[in-house]
């Protein structure tokens, strides 16, 4: 019974990953060719300022988006866990539905809203808040909006599932013993929901490094991320070994973050993935 899974997984999951590792040490030839002579030049090349900047830029964007997702998503998930049983069910369904909707469609909706002759500018000018239409689309904030939009459900789900497991009697006890709302939240609620928050952070941070198509659609290719760099090296740049080296570095970072997460939550699973 295990045969199909073992065969498939070994050939098409493990196989390509091993191939990527090998490829990252190979030499690029012109065209799509690869020469199998060992080199570490691909990794050395990543240290060039241009590429280091790309990594820094990706980090900055991932960091900004994750931070904002935290601030918006934590209360979201936490408040949701305080709803009535029926309210929770409805909120959960309402949250899961966009998860299923093609992310392109959702981003496309933002284009309509943000574009120069779009909805938001129309509203702003009609209200007289701005004289001429603002340039909202194809900018850094537009990318951040897209990132938040796509990643928020991950955070909400994981905060929600850990707030659900929380022992509310502790909060009650703290309040009864005289702690104010804020104090009770900081000393009781927050520590108890920490695993959810952390898993949300990781679930947001990891994909945000790779979501190149958001930067592509909403940012108009202005900001080069590691993801777009890999794509470019695979297609126009046609330097596959270099792309493989970039991917290996990204994989290592992803794995480290997952390890970190496992340590933080002492071996738990990632919470809240649909």
């Amino acid at each position, binding site marked *: 019974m295990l045969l199909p899974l073992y065969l498939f997984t070994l050939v098409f999951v493990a196989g390509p990953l091993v191939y990527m590792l090998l490829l990252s040490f190979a030499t690029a030839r012109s065209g799509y060719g690869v020469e199998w002579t060992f080199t570490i030049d691909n990794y050395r090349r990543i240290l060039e300022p241009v590429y280091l900047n790309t990594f820094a830029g990706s980090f900055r964007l991932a960091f900004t988006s994750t931070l904002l997702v935290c601030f918006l998503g934590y209360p979201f998930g936490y408040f949701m866990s305080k709803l009535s049983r029926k309210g929770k069910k409805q909120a959960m369904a309402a949250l899961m539905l966009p998860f299923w909707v093609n992310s392109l469609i959702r981003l496309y909706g933002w284009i309509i809203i943000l574009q120069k002759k779009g909805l938001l500018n129309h509203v702003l000018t009609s209200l007289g808040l701005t004289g001429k239409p603002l340039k909202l689309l194809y900018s850094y904030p537009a990318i951040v909006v897209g990132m938040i939009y796509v990643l928020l459900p991950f955070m909400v789900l994981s905060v929600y599932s850990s707030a659900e497991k929380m022992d509310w009697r502790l909060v009650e006890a703290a309040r009864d013993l005289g702690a104010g709302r804020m104090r009770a939240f900081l000393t009781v609620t927050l520590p108890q929901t920490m695993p959810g928050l952390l898993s949300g952070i990781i679930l947001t941070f990891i994909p945000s490094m790779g979501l190149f198509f958001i930067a592509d659609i909403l940012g108009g290719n202005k900001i080069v991320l590691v993801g777009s760099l*890999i794509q470019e090296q*695979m297609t126009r740049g046609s330097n596959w070994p270099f792309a493989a080296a970039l991917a290996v570095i990204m994989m290592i970072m992803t794995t480290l973050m997952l390890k970190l997460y496992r340590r933080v939550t002492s071996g738990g699973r990632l919470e809240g993935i649909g």
Partner: protein
Amino acid sequence: MNVRKSSIWERIYLGIMFLVMYLPIGVVIAFSFNESKLPVRFTGFSLVWYEKLFADHAMMEALLNSLILGVLSCLLSAVIGTLGAVGLSRTRWRSRGLMEYISILPLMIPEIILGMVLMAFFYMLRLPFGMLTLLIGHTIFCVPYILIEVKARLEGLDPFLEEAARDMGAGPLRTFRDVTLPLVMPAVLSGSLLAFAMSMDDVVISIFINGPRLSTLPIKVYTQIKTGVTPEINALCTIMLAATVLAFAAWYLCKKLTGGKEEDEQQVD
């Protein structure tokens, strides 16, 4: 003191957040029925963009490709995933943990890496880029969904049911067909629906392995969006949305069928 009652402000916050979440989706739907080409003001109800869309052969072909691909990868991964989950739950092999880890890996790897790695790998294997490579690629990221769902279901099952069947004289095959499979069927279905939705949603991986001639619907949408906004895309997106809502409703029902514990199950990764 009831600390677990949500205040009116908290409800308002949730309301606003949900509103913002659904705003882009609502905008897409509304303007697909708009007469005017400019998505600024609603000038009148019209189905003209739908007519244009259905007349577009390339678009219809992409839709067909996506449907074929979604169904095939869903079926293939349902077989591999279900057999795998049942197998994994029984084996005592030491490779078990590692295999499970590798099988779930496609969900953890950033999509862009999976896409690029597959492109290089298929190129090395000299596979012709097209439906075949897309099918393999989609199956790779669909298997984990089914594996996870079925595994969760198996863990909640009474092991004595299978044992009883064996004691009564049913062979292993018969036990699987008559006892295990019907019991895990809801999980197989909900996993398959999720897999189907993911397959219909995927751009990043597909764009690396689709080859020069074959296009799927998301790829088509992606390339069109990059060039600008047209009302036909609105119409297309609305149709895709309707399909998604249907799939979601079906998935929700499947979840309900697996017992009234859907909240617990959604917490399982």
